[in-house]
C-alpha cells in the first residue's frame, strides 16, 4: 500500500535514473546488430525515446493506478482496452506484417545478448538444446488459441518478454514497469525472489482470511457433527410417505450412553474439532492459493516463448501482456528496451 503512495515520486526518480543508461544500452545494442536493412526500422523505434518520454509523461498521472494489480487478478481482464486496441492498431496492423523485420527486430538483438553469454559456456548449453524442443513447446500451446476470446491473427503481438540474468537487473526492471503504470505484467522467477514485492507493488494477499474462515468452518462443523450425531436425537419422527422421503436425508442422531457419562461433553469432542479445524484451514490455504492465483491455467502468452522455459530454471523474466490497457506495441517496446534485460522477445501466437 505504501508503495502506491510513493509511486508518483519514485516514478520520477526512477525514470530519471533508469532512462539514461538504458537508452544507451539500447542504442549500443542496436548499433551492434549487424543486419544492414534494419537501422531504419530500428531507428524508428529508437527515435521514439521522445515518444517514450511522452508515454511516461502520460503514464505519470496514471502511475497512481498500479493499484489495479489485485483487482485485476479478480476481474476478468478488462476487455475494453482489448476492443480498443485492435481498432487503434488497425491502421498499423498492416505495418507489422509488412515490417515483419521490425517485429523481429528485438530478436535481431540476440547476437548481442549472446556475446556476454559466450563468456559463460554453461549458460549456452541449454540454449543449444532449445531448438529441438521447438515443436513440443509450441504444440503445447497450440490449443490456447481460444483462450483469450478473440481469434487472433497469427502474428498479433501478445506481449513482450524481457529476460534478465540477475536478480538486481530484474528488480530495477520491475520498478520501471511498475512506474510506467502497467498493470497486466509480471515477473517470472525460478524461485521466490525476496524484495520483489516492493519492486512490483504487489499488495498483501487476502489468503489468511480465507484460511481463517476455513478453520472456523471446520471448527463449527466438527462441533456440530458430533453434537448432532452423538449428542441429540430428533424429538420427532416423520412417518408415512413423507417419512419415507425425508428419512434418508434427515437421519436422527443417536445418544448412546457409555459408562454413565454424559451423552455430549465438549472435552471428549475436542480432538475431532481440532483435526477438522486444521483440515479445513489447510484446504483454505491450498485451494485458496490456487484460486487466487488463477491456476491451473495451462495456456498463457509467455508459454509461446521457447526461452521462457528457463524461467523455471535459472533465468528471470518480465512479461508485459498485450491485454494491458496501457499496452501499445511501439511504446511498450521502447519501454521494454530500456529495462536493461539481456534479451527481448515479442510474444506471438504460434504459427501453424
Amino acid at each position: 500500500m505504501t508503495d502506491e503512495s510513493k509511486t508518483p515520486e519514485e516514478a520520477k526518480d526512477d525514470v530519471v535514473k533508469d532512462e539514461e543508461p538504458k537508452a544507451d544500452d539500447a542504442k549500443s545494442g542496436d548499433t551492434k546488430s549487424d543486419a544492414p536493412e534494419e537501422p531504419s526500422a530500428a531507428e524508428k523505434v529508437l527515435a521514439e525515446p521522445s515518444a517514450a518520454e511522452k508515454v511516461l509523461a502520460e503514464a505519470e498521472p496514471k502511475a497512481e493506478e498500479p493499484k489495479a494489480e489485485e483487482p485485476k487478478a479478480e476481474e476478468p481482464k478488462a476487455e475494453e482496452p482489448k476492443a480498443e486496441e485492435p481498432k487503434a492498431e488497425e491502421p498499423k496492423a498492416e505495418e507489422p506484417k509488412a515490417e515483419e523485420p521490425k517485429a523481429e527486430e528485438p530478436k535481431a538483438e540476440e547476437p548481442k545478448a549472446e556475446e556476454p553469454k559466450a563468456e559463460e559456456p554453461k549458460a549456452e548449453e541449454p540454449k543449444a538444446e532449445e531448438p529441438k524442443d521447438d515443436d513440443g513447446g509450441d504444440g503445447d500451446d497450440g490449443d490456447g488459441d481460444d483462450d483469450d476470446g478473440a481469434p487472433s491473427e497469427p502474428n498479433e503481438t501478445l506481449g513482450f518478454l524481457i529476460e534478465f540474468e540477475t536478480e538486481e537487473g530484474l528488480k530495477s526492471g520491475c520498478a520501471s514497469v511498475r512506474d510506467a503504470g502497467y498493470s497486466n505484467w509480471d515477473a517470472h522467477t525460478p524461485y521466490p525472489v525476496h524484495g520483489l514485492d516492493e519492486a512490483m507493488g504487489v499488495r498483501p494477499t487476502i489468503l489468511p482470511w480465507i484460511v481463517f474462515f476455513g478453520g472456523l468452518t471446520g471448527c463449527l462443523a466438527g462441533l456440530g457433527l458430533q453434537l448432532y450425531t452423538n449428542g441429540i436425537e430428533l424429538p420427532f419422527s416423520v412417518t408415512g410417505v413423507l417419512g419415507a422421503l425425508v428419512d434418508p436425508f434427515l437421519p436422527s442422531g443417536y445418544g448412546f450412553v457409555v459408562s454413565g457419562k454424559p451423552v455430549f461433553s465438549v472435552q471428549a469432542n475436542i480432538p475431532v474439532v481440532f483435526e477438522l479445524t486444521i483440515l479445513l484451514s489447510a484446504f483454505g490455504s491450498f485451494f485458496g492459493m490456487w484460486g487466487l492465483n488463477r491456476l491451473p491455467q495451462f495456456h498463457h502468452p509467455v508459454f509461446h516463448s521457447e526461452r521462457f522455459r528457463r524461467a523455471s530454471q535459472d533465468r528471470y523474466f518480465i512479461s508485459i501482456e498485450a491485454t494491458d490497457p496501457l499496452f501499445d506495441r511501439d511504446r511498450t517496446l521502447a519501454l521494454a528496451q530500456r529495462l536493461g534485460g539481456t534479451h527481448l522477445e515479442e510474444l506471438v501466437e504460434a504459427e501453424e
Partner: protein
Amino acid sequence: VSETAADFNNTFDDPTRRSPLITGEHDLTTITDRICGVVEGKPPTIWWIALAISASVMSLLGLCLAYLFICGTGTWGLNNPVTWGWAIVNFVFWVGIGHAGTLISAILFLFRQKWRTGINRSAEAMTIFAVICAGLFPGVHIGRVWYAYYLAPMPNQMDMWPQFRSPLLWDVFAVNTYFTVSLLFWYMGLVPDLATLRDRATSRVRQMAYGFFALGWRGSHRHWHRYERAYLILAALATPLVLSVHSVVSFDFAVSQVPGWHTTIFPPYFVAGAIFSGFAMVLTLLIPAREIFGLKDFITLRHIENMNKVILATGSIVGLAYGTEFFIAWYSDNPLEQFAFRNRMFGHYWWAYLIMVSCNVITPQIFWIKKFRTNIYITFVASIIVNIGMWFERFVIIISSLSADFIPAAWDYYHPTWVDVLTFVGSFGLFMTLFLLFCRFLPMVAMAEVKLTYMELKHMEHNRHEAEALLAEAAQGKEATS
C-alpha cells in the same frame, strides 16, 4: 551424473563463517541440471534391482491381504487377552515414521533451519508413503473390510453413528487429516519443480504428464507471493497437527484402563519416539539414495550430522520417558501398575524389552561423538538399529501390557503367525516401492527452495564481503588520520 569423489566436510562449527549448505561449485543452472538429471537420465542398475526386490516383497503384502480377506483375522496370532496384535504395532510404527517428514518440512521451516531444503522433499515423500502403510493396518484389522466405511460418519437408515467419544475414532480423523495435509503440503512444494521438469522435457509424454501436474505454473511473482504465504500457513498448521497426531495415537492406549497404558506421559513420549524413528528412517533412505543418485552436494554430511543430533536428542527423551514410567509406577503405589512394569522388564517379554532399550536408548548415545555423527556407515547401521528398536517399543507397550492384564486366568502368551510376519514385511515392500518410484519420477530435492536458500546465502556472503571491505577501509582511514 557426476559425483564428488569424497564427501566435502562441511560440518565445521566456525562462528565467523557459515558452513555451505550446498557443497561443490554450483549455480542455478547446475543445481537444476543435477537434480533434474536424476529424473531425466537413465536409472542406475541398482535402482532396477531394488525396485524388483521391493515390488516382489510388495506382492507378498497383496497375497497376505487376500488371504486375510478370505479367511479373516483368525489367521493372525490374536488371542483372548491380546486382541490387538501386530496390526496395531505396525500401525503405530508406520505413523511414527511419518513424523520426521512433517517435522523437517514444517517445524524446521518455522524455525528457519535452512538446511532443511536439502532433505525436505524426500522426507515428506517418506511421510506420505509411511502413512499409507500405516493406514493399511487399521483398515484391514477390522476383519470385514467391506464395512470399513462405518469408520466415517455416514448417514444411514439405521441412524447408526460412530462414537465420537472413542479415541479410536479420534485416530481416524487425526490420521486422515494428517495424510491429507501432508499430501497437500508436499504437492504444493512439488508444483514449481514439476514446472521445471515440464520446461526441460524432451518428449511429449513427459511434457504432458509433468505439465498437467504443474498446473500451468509460470513462476509468476504474483503467484510466488501468495504461494509463500500459503506455504507458511500450511507449515504453521502442520506443526500442531503433527504433534496432535501421535498424541491422538497414544490416546488409543492412554485413555484405556489397561495397566501400562493408562498414563499421562504417553502423548509427549509417543511424539518424541515418532520423531526419533522418523529421522532414523530418513537416514536409512537418504544415505543410499544420495550415493546412488549423486546428490551428495545437496544432502551433505552436515545434513546427516544434524539429523543425528536430532536422533540423539529424541532418543534421550525416549530413554527418559522409559525411566519416568518406571518411577511413576513405583511412586503411584498402584500394584497393577507396578506389576505391569515389572512384567515388562522381567516377564515373558524381557527379550523384547532388552532389544528396545539397547536399540533406542543406548545406540543413539554414540552420537555424542562427532566422529560417529559424521560417519555415514556408522550412521546408516545405527539408523536401522533405531528403527528395529522403535518397532519393538510398540511391541513391548502393546503386547506385554495386553498379554498380562487384569485376571491372571486370562493371561496368554502371544505368538505371531506367518501371515502377521509376511504382512509386515510386505508393508516394507510397499513403502520401498513407492519411495523408489518417487526417486525416479519426481525431483528428490526441492529445487526452488534450494535455489532460494542458495541465493540468500550468496547475498549474505556478498554483504559480508562488502561490510568487511568497508570496515577495512574505515580502519585504514583511522590509521591515516592518526
